[in-house]
C-alpha cells in the first residue's frame, strides 16, 4: 500500500461551467498497490449547497468479512466531535440499530473475500458551507458477496458549525484496494 491519494482539485484550466444543479467535482481512483487514504480538498470549490460522494470500495487488508474505514472533516479526527447512527441488515441475521459517539465510517469487504467485489454507496453532506448549522450527513451503502452481505443506512453529525473544506478517508493500518473509487459531486440550489 502506498501513500495518500488525492481526489484532486481543480484550480486551473477549468472548463467553462455549463448551468446544471449536479456537477462532478473530482474523482479518486485507486491504482495498483492500493492507497492508505483518500483526501478531497474543497478549499477552491464554491457555488454548491450540498455535496454527494458516490463510491465503490474494498479493503486493502485481508481481515475478516467486512470492516470499515473512517472519514472526517477538515482536520477534526476526534471521535468526541461526531455522532453516528445506523440501521442495518447483516446477512440473514436480525436487523441491527446502533449509535456511537464516533467518527463517520464506510464499510467495505476484506481483500480475501469474493474477488472483484466492492461495497457500493452514496454519502450526502448537507449545507457543507453553512456556518450557522452543525453538519448532517446521510449514507446509504451495501455489500453482497454471494452468501453474506449488508445493507446500511446511516446518519452522522459533525458537531461543528465550521465550513467543510476537506474530507479525509483514512484509518490507521487500513486502506483501499485497487479499483476502489470515490467520486465527489456538488449540488446547487
Amino acid at each position, binding site marked *: 500500500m502506498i501513500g495518500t491519494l488525492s481526489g*484532486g482539485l*481543480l484550480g486551473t484550466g*477549468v*472548463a467553462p*461551467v*455549463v448551468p*446544471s444543479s*449536479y*456537477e*462532478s*467535482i*473530482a*474523482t479518486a481512483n485507486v491504482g495498483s498497490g492500493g492507497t492508505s487514504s483518500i483526501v478531497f480538498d474543497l478549499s477552491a470549490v464554491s457555488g454548491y449547497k450540498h455535496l454527494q460522494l*458516490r*463510491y*465503490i470500495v474494498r479493503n486493502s487488508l485481508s481481515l475478516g468479512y467486512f470492516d470499515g474505514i473512517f472519514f472526517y472533516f477538515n482536520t477534526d479526527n476526534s471521535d468526541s466531535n461526531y455522532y453516528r447512527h445506523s*440501521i*442495518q*441488515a*447483516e*446477512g*440473514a*441475521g*436480525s*436487523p441491527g440499530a446502533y449509535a456511537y459517539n464516533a467518527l463517520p465510517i464506510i464499510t467495505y469487504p476484506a481483500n480475501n473475500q*469474493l*474477488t*472483484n*467485489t*466492492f*461495497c*457500493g*454507496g*452514496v454519502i450526502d453532506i448537507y449545507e457543507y458551507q453553512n456556518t450557522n448549522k452543525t453538519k448532517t450527513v446521510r449514507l*446509504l*451503502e*451495501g*455489500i*453482497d*458477496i*454471494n*452468501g*453474506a*452481505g*449488508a*445493507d446500511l*443506512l446511516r446518519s452522522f453529525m459533525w458537531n461543528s458549525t465550521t465550513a467543510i473544506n476537506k474530507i479525509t478517508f483514512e484509518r490507521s493500518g487500513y486502506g483501499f484496494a*485497487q*479499483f476502489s*473509487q470515490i*467520486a465527489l*459531486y*456538488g449540488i446547487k440550489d
Partner: protein
Amino acid sequence: MAVTYDPLSTTTLTSNQANITFDISSTPNQSYTDLIIICNVKMSGANENNNLQFNNVTSGGYYSVTRLYGNGSTYSTNLSSSQDQMQLGEMSTTGSTDVIQIFNYSNTNVNKTVISTGGQTGGFMKITTGLFRQTSAITSVKLFPGSGNYGIGSTFTIFGIKAAS
C-alpha cells in the same frame, strides 16, 4: 466542473407489459460512471417483486441479494445467493417506487453492485443490495415482475452519472 446526471431515456407504458429492457450498449451510454433507474409502477394484477437481469444473463446463478425491509409493523432481513435474477423492490397495484443504483456499470475490473430502495403504498419498504458476479460491462438492463405485468401508466427513467476523470 463537468456537468453530469443526464436522463438517458424514459418509458411510459401504454399497455400492461411483462418486462422492460434498456439497451445501453451504444458508445454514449457506456461513458457514464453510474446508472440510476427510477421505476414508478402500478402492477396490473397482484403485488410482486421487481426483478433485474443484466446483459441477458438468465442462468448460471450469477446474482445475489441482501435485503432489509419493513412492512409497517415489523422489520427483517434476508439474503439469497446464486440466483438467476436480482429480486429488488416490492411493486404494488396501488403505487410503488423502486430506485435502482448501478455502480461502475461499465468497469470491467469489478463485479457489479446494485442498491435498490423501494417503497409501496401498502406500507412495505425495502433496501436491497444486489451483486452480479460478472466483470463484463453492463450493456442491457431488463426489469420484470416476479409474475404478471407492470400496469398502464407505469414509468421507467434511466439516468447516467459521470464522474470527473
